[in-house]
């Protein structure tokens, strides 16, 4: 038994170590600018303050960046779900010549590193006159091959009988897609929704490239820029980082099991 206790203590120590940086993030954000450099090590500031948060919202563009991130993430998640589920339906349920080839063509996209496309994409969006727009941040992220993969696999499992019954009632493909496939594919759609939202919210390199005007920053780019503009105001920077993370932490705690399942299913990073 004592061996088991020892194991538990070790795990507990490891957990404290792993959660410490996040706690430190929160603690620093509640310290006054003066306290940050005087009582470095104290976990709980004697005078916790929300001043950094009001300063972050009052004298920086953080509210604007949050708004941009929400728009970008919500819009790209919805559009990704629509286009990914449509092609997944075609691949899973419509027999046509070239179906396998199309599937492989789509999956091959998973091997393409987005990082190797930024120069060309920038020039492309420049030609389209879309530099410094939220649309430019959204568009290249919409076609998500891993989403097509998950949805196709899932749609294949929906019983054929449901579809046949609808055919007999004279339903067209679009009706079948919206009234049978979508409701039955809910759990896969939730997985893809979460993956897409996390990707969009945390995307950094592309928004950095395409949004040079601070009004169009997403929160990730804004926080990266904080260091340049507020160099030593650590508590303010940490408050900004908390604001940037809170929506995702809430999402994570709410959908923990789906997120874990989604990751396990895909084994894909972005």
């Amino acid at each position, binding site marked *: 038994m004592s061996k088991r206790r020892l194991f*538990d203590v070790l*795990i507990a120590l490891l*957990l404290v170590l*792993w*959660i410490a*940086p*996040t706690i*430190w*993030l929160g603690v620093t954000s509640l310290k006054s600018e003066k306290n*940050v450099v005087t009582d*470095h*090590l104290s976990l709980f500031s004697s005078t916790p303050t929300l001043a950094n948060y009001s300063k972050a919202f009052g004298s920086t563009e953080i509210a604007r960046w949050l708004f941009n991130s929400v728009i970008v993430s919500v819009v790209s998640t919805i559009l990704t779900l629509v*286009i*990914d589920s*449509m092609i997944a339906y*075609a691949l899973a349920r*419509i027999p*046509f*010549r070239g179906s396998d080839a199309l599937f492989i063509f*789509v999956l091959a*996209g998973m*091997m*393409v*590193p987005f*990082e*190797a*496309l*930024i*120069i*060309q994409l*920038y020039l*492309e969006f420049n030609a389209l006159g879309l530099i410094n727009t939220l649309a430019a941040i959204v*568009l*290249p992220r*919409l*076609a998500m*091959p891993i989403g097509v993969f998950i949805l196709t696999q899932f749609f294949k499992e929906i019983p054929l009988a449901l579809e046949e019954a609808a055919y007999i009632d004279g339903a067209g*493909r679009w009706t079948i897609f919206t009234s049978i496939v979508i409701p039955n594919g809910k759990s896969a759609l939730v997985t893809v929704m979460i993956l897409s939202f996390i990707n969009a919210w*945390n995307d*950094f*390199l592309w928004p950095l*490239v395409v949004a040079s005007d601070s009004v169009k920053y997403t929160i990730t*780019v804004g*926080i*990266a820029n*904080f*260091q340049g503009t507020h160099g030593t105001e*650590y508590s303010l*920077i940490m408050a900004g*980082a908390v604001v*940037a993370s809170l929506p*995702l932490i809430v999402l*994570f705690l709410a959908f*923990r099991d789906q*997120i*874990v399942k989604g*990751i*396990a299913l895909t*084994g894909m*990073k972005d």
Partner: protein
Amino acid sequence: MRHNHNARDALLFSLPFLIVYLAFLVLPIFYGIYLSFFDWNILSGKRFIGFLNYLDAFKDDKFLSSLLHTCEFVLISTPTIIVAGFLMALIVMSSSKLKRGAETVFFMPYILSITVVGTLWSWIFQGSFGILNQTLLALGLRTVGWLTDPKTAMWSIACATVWWTAGFNMILFTAGIKQIPDDVYEAAKLDGAGYFTTLAKITLPMLRNTSILVLILQVIASFKVFGQSYVMTGGGPYGSTRVLVQYIYETGFTYFRMGYASAMSILLFLIILFVSIFQFAAAKGEGK
């Protein structure tokens, strides 16, 4: 069932995805290959130079050092992240009461954005007021230039990365362990095998496929490293943490050498393609 409209319906349902996919993924690949054969500074005109950009890259000290730093990061971070992720999976799959909490705590950093992780760890590693150096001082030890000493900077960046992404690999390993049939373990138990024997003789060998997947994904992810060094060191000190993606970014958007930046992008693409093909070969070899 109706079959007469299959091809038309399939096309209509695929079209929205295909348009976006072709415009923003397939086209840029070919456009990049095309551009890589030109000397093109955005201010001047395009000039066809054949493979010169590629040859230049291998004579460019900055490119070579960026490639070297990237490889350095891959070599430091990959084994650490994989081992950490595996140990986490063992904890999550153990019978400890803490296992569910452990899964949450270990995975949580992964959902933070790289800029949050970068700013947070810059603060932890901060030279004069950061908690690490303050702790060292309190213990009467000498402080370390975590992000300011060229010898340690890449290690510090790798450390932050381990914290950020080990939980991702934990999920993959956990899923792999769950697929090992229970009766295999029960049989081992009946034979009197202890924990470490079972681990070495059953868990590890049966995780071979998962391990290959994790390894390849991790190597690919590490080759694409950018945000960490961009936020934490800006590529410094003295360019010691400048990685490939950052050099491509700088070449394109600071020096506007679009042709040269494209050529380096294609090289990055080829490296990652090579790793992916290696993955398929390894996975296929597994089937025999």
